[in-house]
């Protein structure tokens, strides 16, 4: 019997040892608590991401707060997550490379995200760039529109699917290489801004389209005849009116026509990741890429910005507004989370501080175009008072 007993103990011992190991493992796993989140959660634009991470890093190092977690999800994706609702399992801040849209604002309101603080961070030019191994391009907005729009006016003024294959077909002064442009997808704020500023700007140089844009929603007949003149089906007008529930203005139709990007392979959606586009350009000297100026600045040794309407994208031309394709950068804060999740307002204040966003701050050093002094003071006041955004 004693022998059997000792054997039993031996087995139990061995199993206990295993169990102990398991228990030690479990104990480190056990802290399964979804509650008590004490770090700021940030999502949003890939253009703001490099600035936000720099601020987050400084913020984490210099204060007693935890460093925020930042996911790069694109402006649209970020706002969707942001507007899902209030609560510890939703993000506190979303970065955007364009202003929040009315529809997104309404979405937020409907989901209980009623109070939003808007912080303008600075400006970013959108560069159309290519590899340094290739000659620098000099484009006009019209060239860009003709190269990238889905439908462009044909010889008779009617819209036809974009027929251009090489840059030279558009403008004899341009090289005879294939149109191959890497750019962001529609979720991206860069894309929205690019469509509005570059494509829209280019389309305005075509008289018929410019005239269309000038028509108000009360000029239905004029709009219809303009649509007919462009060779679009007249149904476009009716379809638009039905889907939106109101009579479209000439501008609405103009947007539909001018902002649509071609889908035949000349424009390549390269994902949200602007870094990737830079790397791809470096490897493919024939391609052009569309991305934020900060990436151009950071990679000035690999890629060069094309002249647009004769202006080269650089720090000064963008700050002055000479460079035609530049847009503001924002982030949005859920005011309901301020004071509930530690560090949100402090993070926002750090972002808006002089040492970050000021003329000699660390963000301009990373390629952000700073605000004017008045704008900056206004933003700092907004952050301090948690000004609610009204739309």
């Amino acid at each position, binding site marked *: 019997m004693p022998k059997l007993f000792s054997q039993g103990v031996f087995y139990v011992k061995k199993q206990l040892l295993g*169990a102990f190991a398991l228990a030690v493992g479990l104990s480190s796993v056990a802290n399964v608590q979804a509650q008590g989140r004490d770090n700021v959660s940030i999502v949003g634009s890939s253009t703001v991401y490099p600035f936000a991470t720099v601020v987050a890093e400084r913020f984490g190092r210099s204060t007693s707060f935890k460093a925020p977690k930042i996911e790069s999800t694109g402006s649209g994706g970020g706002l969707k997550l942001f507007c899902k609702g209030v609560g510890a399992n939703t993000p506190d801040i979303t970065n955007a490379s364009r202003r929040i849209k009315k529809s997104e604002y309404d979405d937020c309101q409907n989901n209980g995200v009623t109070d939003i603080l808007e912080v303008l961070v600075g400006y970013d030019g959108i560069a159309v760039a290519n590899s340094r191994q290739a000659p620098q391009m000099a484009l006009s907005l019209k060239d860009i529109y003709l190269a990238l729009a889905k439908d462009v006016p044909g010889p008779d003024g009617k819209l036809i699917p974009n027929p251009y294959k090489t840059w030279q077909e558009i403008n004899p002064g341009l090289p005879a290489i294939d149109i191959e442009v890497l750019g962001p997808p*529609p*979720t991206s704020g860069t894309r929205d801004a690019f469509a509005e500023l570059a494509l829209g700007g280019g389309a305005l140089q075509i008289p018929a389209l410019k005239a269309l844009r000038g028509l108000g929603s009360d000029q239905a007949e004029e709009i219809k005849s303009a649509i007919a003149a462009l060779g679009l089906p007249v149904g476009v007008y009716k379809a638009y009116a039905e889907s939106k529930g109101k009579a479209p203005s000439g501008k609405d139709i103009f947007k539909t026509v001018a902002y649509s990007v071609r889908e035949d392979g000349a424009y390549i*959606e390269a994902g949200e990741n602007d870094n990737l586009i830079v790397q791809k350009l470096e490897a493919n000297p024939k391609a052009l890429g569309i991305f934020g100026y900060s990436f151009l600045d950071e990679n000035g040794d690999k890629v060069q910005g094309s002249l647009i309407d004769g202006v080269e994208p650089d720090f000064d031309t963008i700050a002055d507004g000479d460079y035609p394709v530049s847009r503001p950068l924002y982030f949005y804060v859920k005011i309901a989370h301020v004071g509930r999740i530690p560090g949100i307002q402090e993070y926002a204040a750090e972002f808006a501080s002089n040492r970050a966003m000021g003329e000699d701050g660390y963000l301009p050093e990373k390629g952000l175009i700073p605000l004017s002094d008045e704008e900056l003071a206004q933003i700092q006041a907004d952050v301090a008072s948690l000004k609610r955004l009204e739309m």
Partner: protein
Amino acid sequence: MQTSTVFLTLLALCAVSFFVARHRSRLVGMAGGGLTTLNSLPKHYGYMAALWAGLPALALFVAWLVLESTVLQRLVVVTLPAEIQAMPPSEQGLYYNQLVAYALGNVDASQVSEAQVQGARYYSELATASKQLKMLLVSAVAVLGGLLAVLRIRPDFRARNHVETIFTSILFICSFIAVLTTLGIVLSVLFEAIRFFQVIDISDFLFGLQWSPQMAIRADQVGASGSFGFVPLLAGTLLISFVAMVIAVPVGLMSAIYLSEYASRRFRAVTKPVLEILAGVPTVVYGFFAALTVAPFLRNLGESIGLSVASESALAAGLVMGIMIIPFVMSLSDDIISAVPDTMREASLGMGATMSETIRKVLLPAALPGIVGGILLAVSRAIGETMIVVMAAGLSAKLTINPLEAVTTITVQIVTLLVGDQEFDSPKTLAAFALGLVLFFVTLMLNIVALYVVRKYREQYE
């Protein structure tokens, strides 16, 4: 250490139950006229008691861990001021989140209100109480279970069968998880895929020749219409897989033949593990290698001989993927060639055939079905490979068979569609699930066919 303390206590109680029950069963047996009057061995009674003590208590323990935070929240919120209770649940959750963060010492007192401080105090009390109660209840249930088992000890109680049934059930549940996983995969991709096919016609998806998922994700956005034709993706995937196979199959197969038929034992013992390192390299490393080393190299090489090679050429991704698959093909072929009976080898050699003739005329034909099966498995692996193509393949869906051009694959598109935009209503994100479904089925079919072929072949020689 709380959790582990409870866990260890539970184990200790199980052990105690084991010994008590074993001891008692011996007493019962002796009283009844010797141990042989017991239906089962004393230790079976011990196991039974340990299981009775452990399983219900463990279930309680796990349930407690899962439900604890929700219950605590309810309890704490009830004591909070009325205006907090009147808050909408989301805001209340935030308020409570902060309270907990304060209670855990992650937030300064300066940031919380008086009510929260009190709530936090109450929370801490409750949390401590919950821990103690958990310990107590779990122990109580364990003791009770053990006791119940001990009391049930009768000479005619079939403890062994009882224990074995319980154990077998646990084992069965563990193995059934595989089925649940498959089910989970199918359901999670199927539901979203069905929603996708409500928006996009299934035949447009399967036979469409254009993949351009630009689609407005907001109502007021002027986006493109979006087209979801799957064919270019499939073509791209197959092109890259084909390049990979062109590298992997000859190298892998010839290596396997050399190592199993020619090489000395020692050479083989060293070479095989070294080559298998290639299979253990993480795919993200291959991706890095492909994107930063192989692709630029190929492009420069192409330039120097006047060829235009895209920077994300299918060739670069496929080449690197091929390297990854070499050991896979090698191991499978090796197994299969070794499985060919020696009698066939010896018969051929005895007839005066050279080694290479034996291999080509006897071994390979005999092993062919197995090798084909192995190659199919390798193809299925190439199709599902993600990181290499995400990092080194292109994004534009071109329908081409030129490996020097950039193509995109199913897995690349899944990643691009999902990473970054997580809303579940636009066809764009739903498309990822449809692609996932297709990917799952394609690899499943390849796998079933391959396993069938391999098994059939094995049976032939066993």
